[in-house]
C-alpha cells in the first residue's frame, strides 16, 4: 500500500504525459474517495464482527447526526467530533444502566 501510494504521488512529477489531468477524471476520483471514506464511517459505526450492530446503531446514528449538524453549522470538524463522541458515550452509558 505504501509503494502504491508513493507511485501515485511520484509518477506525475516524473512523467509529463500524466501532468495534464482531465478535470472530469479529477472530479470522479474525488467522488470515489468521498464514497469510500463515508462507507468506512458507516461500517465502523454500524457493523461489529461482520454483523449489523442493531443495539448500538440507533444511538451511534443519533450521535453522528448531531456531530455532523454541529460541524456543518459551526464549520468546525473538531467541535462536531467532540460533541458527537460525548453523546455516543453518554448514550452508551444510558443504554448499559
Amino acid at each position, binding site marked *: 500500500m505504501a509503494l502504491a501510494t508513493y507511485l*501515485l504521488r511520484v509518477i506525475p512529477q516524473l512523467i509529463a504525459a500524466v501532468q495534464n489531468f482531465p478535470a472530469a477524471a479529477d472530479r*470522479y476520483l474525488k467522488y470515489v474517495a468521498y464514497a*469510500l471514506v463515508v462507507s468506512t*464511517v458507516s461500517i465502523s459505526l454500524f457493523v461489529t464482527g461482520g454483523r449489523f450492530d442493531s443495539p448500538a446503531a440507533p444511538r451511534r446514528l443519533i450521535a453522528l447526526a448531531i456531530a455532523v449538524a454541529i460541524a456543518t453549522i459551526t464549520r468546525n470538524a473538531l467541535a462536531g467530533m467532540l460533541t458527537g463522541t460525548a453523546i455516543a458515550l453518554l448514550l452508551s452509558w444510558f443504554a448499559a444502566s
Partner: protein
Amino acid sequence: MLSSTPFREGVRAAIPVWIAFTTSSFALGVAAKANGLHWGEIVLMSALVYAGPAQFAVVGPLGAGAPPLQVLLAGFLINLRFLPMSAALAPYFRRVARGKLIAASHFISASSFVIPYMRFQRESQKPRAKEADNDESNLQFFLGLSMTSFSVWVVGTGVGYWAALHVPAEFEEAIKFVLPGYFACLLATEAREWSIRAVCIASLLIAVPGSLWNPNWGWIVTALVIATLGWGVQQWMQRE
C-alpha cells in the same frame, strides 16, 4: 535549505495543517488501538503511507484480518486522488533535480496540497528573476510545509495510540466513535456541492447492506457504484 526563506515561510504556512493533523492523527492512533493493531504497525504505516483517509479505511479491515488485496485496493482507490494533486503541483517543480522530486513526492498529501498550490499560482503571476530559481524556491516552500506536517502526523499517531492505552474500559464507545466521527465531520465541512452530499448520504446508507452481502468487497463495490452514479448525474446535469 532549512534556513532558506521559502522553507521558513513554508513552516509558518503549515501551522493550520499541524492543528488539523494533530486531531486526525491522534484519532487514527486511538482507532488503531481499538482495532487491535500494534503501536509500531500504525506508526510505521503513518510514516510509509502518510494518507489519513486511506489509513482510516484500512485500519478496521487490517485489524479484522481482511485479505491483503482488499486492504490494498481500498487504500489505492482512495489514494488515486494523489494523481491529480501531484499533477497540479508538477509544473511548479519542473526545473528541480529529479532526485529531489523523487524524495519530496512522498510528502504530497491532501491537506498540505492546497496551501502550496495556491501560493505557486499567485507567485507565478509575478515577474521573477529566473524560472529555475522559482522552481527551487517552490520546492523549499513545499518541503517546509509538508515535512513538518508529516512529522506532526507520525508523532500524533503514536501519541494517540499511547493515549488510548490509558483509557478506561467504560470509555470504549468514545474510542470507537472518535475517528469515524471526525472524518464524517470533516467531510460535512468540506462537501458543499449537492452532488457530493448526495454521494455521501447514499454511501452511508448503502455501505452496511453492501458489507453484509460481502464483508470484504461489498462496501467497496457499493462505494464505487454510488461514486460512478453521482459523478455521471453531475456530468450529465452540467451539460444541460
